[in-house]
């Protein structure tokens, strides 16, 4: 019974993954031009999984982990966004976001640990 539940869940997730990425009802030339735009949906799905962990996390440490991972995912989002639009400054936003996310994660870790900030 448990195996059947696991298989159903895996099939639903993998089909969401694959159908958001490859559209089977278009020609090959169109597929190449749509590849990156469909890649956004995969990152969007990953972001939704992180949000699920932020909402449901039993301890504060779980939420901090999910926030950290979401920050790195947004850097990948910025990197992909630079290719089809042809604008170079998206990667600058990515660098700034990664720096900010790193520092905020360190501050959150100190806060969870229960120490003061000046140590």
């Amino acid at each position, binding site marked *: 019974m*448990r*195996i059947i539940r*696991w*298989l159903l869940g*895996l099939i639903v997730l993998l089909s969401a993954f694959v159908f958001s990425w490859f559209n089977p009802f278009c020609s090959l030339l169109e597929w190449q031009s749509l590849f990156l735009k469909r890649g956004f949906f995969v990152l969007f799905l990953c972001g939704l999984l992180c949000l699920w962990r932020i909402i449901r996390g039993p301890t504060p440490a779980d939420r901090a982990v999910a926030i950290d991972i979401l920050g790195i995912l947004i850097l990948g989002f910025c990197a992909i966004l630079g290719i089809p639009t042809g604008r170079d400054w998206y990667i600058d936003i990515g660098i700034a976001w990664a720096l900010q996310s790193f520092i905020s994660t360190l501050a959150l870790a100190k806060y969870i640990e229960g120490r003061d900030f000046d140590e």
Partner: protein
Amino acid sequence: MRKSHIILFIFLILMWLFVTWPTDLQHLIVGILVCGFVSFMIGDMFVKRPHVFKHLSRYLWFLYYIPLFIWECIKANLDVAYRVAHPDLPINPGIVKVKTDLKSDTALTFLANSITLTPGTMSVDIDAEKGYLYIHWINVKDKDIHKATEIIVARFEKILKRIFD
């Protein structure tokens, strides 16, 4: 101007050239002024042993270390993907203690980062005085200190000792 100031200046100017890649003259002048000021102020806080940078063999060992690290990283990712997608979740976690011989801060930082990105292990805390590392291991094979040291730390420690110590 001592040696540590010059080494920090070289690192900073390389970083500045990467950030403003098609460099023109104005960017270069501003970069040299700011990097010179910063390295003059805080040079001897970051680089404490400038004689380390003279040996050529350290750079060669570092070049050998990079592909080894990337290969271990790819193996770690395939391992995690297998464990996550398996229906029974084949994990057996625990925190073990290993011993290391490295002394300097840079070497310990690189060792902890390498352990975090290689298959199944993540460093939790460092006891720098006695040389112990506490490691969360997703599939504990052995609880003993010496055998865990052989499995986890030994392959990186040999190389990192030649690079940083």
